[in-house]
């Protein structure tokens, strides 16, 4: 079904409800990618935070870029609500999926508001309300006129996330959005992402910090040398046993659920 514009396509109307539901979401089916990913399948659900973890070179960023439609896999494919990503018009795909890369490049020293407004490009409009809403949500209204070069690392990361949010995507795919941030800013940014998820946005994050994934994700995908090694709730997918096997480091988890610490 398509509740957004009320159009129900015939093949969907005829389909049993359960099957119709199973088509929703961002779905990777047997993705193969030139020596980097091998047969990775996963159905990601909207309204949740999914973390992608794994050692260096496991293929996390490649998987994220496949999910964002930026890389077309050699084998398998990605579907969004049942439709293959390459079948979307690029603008249409861009309105549905927001992508935040690891290196937050900003080539020109634009003001924060101009930067955030770039998120509206897929909509081909100049609506200011989503831009202002994103600025407000990330506490950037006071910095809106400041050039990007004069932002701190945390402010810059917030501005780049606000750019994604200004596009009002149904999916936010972010590669290591927390890597350059101190603890307080990490938690603040995770709070913003959680609020987006609560509004029904699908949030997919590549995370290096296993404790952040354990405490803040609803689901964790663990990649090992391009293969999906574990998939499930954080305490299962990132259990001490799994971490020990895949990262090759004996570890223990301490503390309460939601506030666990990794001890090596």
């Amino acid at each position: 079904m398509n509740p957004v514009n009320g159009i129900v396509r015939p093949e969907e109307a005829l389909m049993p409800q359960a099957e119709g539901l199973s088509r929703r979401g961002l779905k990777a089916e047997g993705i193969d990618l030139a020596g980097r990913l091998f047969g990775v399948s996963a159905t990601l659900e909207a309204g949740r935070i999914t973390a992608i973890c794994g050692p260096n070179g496991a293929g996390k960023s490649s998987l994220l870029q496949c999910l964002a439609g930026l890389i077309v896999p050699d084998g398998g494919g990605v579907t969004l609500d049942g439709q293959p990503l390459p079948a979307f018009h690029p603008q249409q795909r861009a309105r549905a999926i927001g992508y935040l890369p690891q290196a937050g490049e900003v080539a020109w020293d634009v003001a924060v508001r101009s930067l955030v407004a770039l998120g509206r490009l897929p909509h081909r409009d100049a609506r200011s309300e989503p831009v202002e809403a994103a600025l407000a949500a990330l506490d950037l209204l006071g910095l809106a006129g400041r050039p990007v070069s004069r932002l701190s690392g945390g402010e810059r990361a917030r501005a780049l996330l606000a750019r994604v949010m200004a596009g009002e995507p149904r999916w936010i795919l972010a590669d290591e959005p927390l890597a350059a941030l101190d603890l307080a800013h990490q938690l603040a940014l995770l709070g913003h992402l959680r609020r987006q998820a609560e509004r029904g946005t699908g949030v997919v994050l590549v995370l290096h910090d296993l404790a952040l994934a354990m405490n803040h994700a609803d689901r964790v995908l663990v990649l090992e040398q391009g293969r999906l090694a574990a998939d499930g709730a954080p305490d299962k997918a990132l259990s001490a046993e799994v971490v020990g096997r895949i990262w090759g480091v004996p570890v223990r988890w301490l503390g309460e659920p939601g506030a666990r610490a990794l001890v090596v």
Partner: protein
Amino acid sequence: MTRPVPLLLLLLAPAFALSLLAGRVWIDPAATPNAALILAELRLPRSVLALVVGAGLGAAGAAMQGYLRNPLADPGLFGIAPMAALGAVASFWLGLEARPWALPVLALAGAGAGMALLALMAGRTASGTSGIALFTLAGLMLASLAGTLTSLAISMAPNAFAMSEIVTWLMGALTDRGWGEVGIAAPLTLAGLACLTAAARGLDALTLGEAVARSLGVEPQRLLAWLVLGVGLTVGSGVAVAGIVGFVGLIVPHLVRPLTDRRPSRLIVPSALAGALLVLVADSAVRAIPFVTELRLGIALSLVGAPFFLWLLLRMRKGLA
């Protein structure tokens, strides 16, 4: 943010009027004999051509800097200007310089061949993750090859007269141009400006890098096509009527950028206006400076441009640019 467009228009109006009067002989419309004829047939087309050539170079420079995300990029990087020059040189070499249509037509053919080669290379480079860097290197090779072939044509010129003609023409000038040249350059430059405007949104998206631009719905091949067409038409027609006029495409966007909000799309029109102003003023200046022979426009702009470029590099090293 100041608004550069009204400011530049305000500067262009008196500069244009002055350019009509300036020259080896200053015209006093009331006193000079045949003033109307000189204005209509000599000064006016030359000034209009200066506007057209400058606007094309300025806008192409702004678009190239946006595309390469580099304030030191120049429209010459794609190799279109050297290819157009090569076409023009071929007309001397073939002994066709007596036919007024031959030079611009062959120069445009050279620019067109350059664009076609770039399109071929784009098909093989723009799809990868480092597409822009690869494509630019390919463009540089094209520029280098065209430059070498031009040198070859000069060294093998059929006679000394042809050689001196080629060398002089390559220096770039607007001397003795008429409405015919305006008729060639103006429509092509306007079409080129339209193509560059079509690329503007994609250039904005590129501010955040190639991957994000694609995630924002930009199609790299389509963006590149508009850009190659736009730069090809503006720079190609500029070279066809004026020879090589360097540094305008490099300096102008850099001077205009601080007056804008620094978004590449907002730089194209002001750069066109500022390029028009710079070439108009420079051409008026070379006409008015009393040398024995008129200082070539291309030489004058390079004399100003090269030190400026050097200063720019040093300033960037200090992290101020």
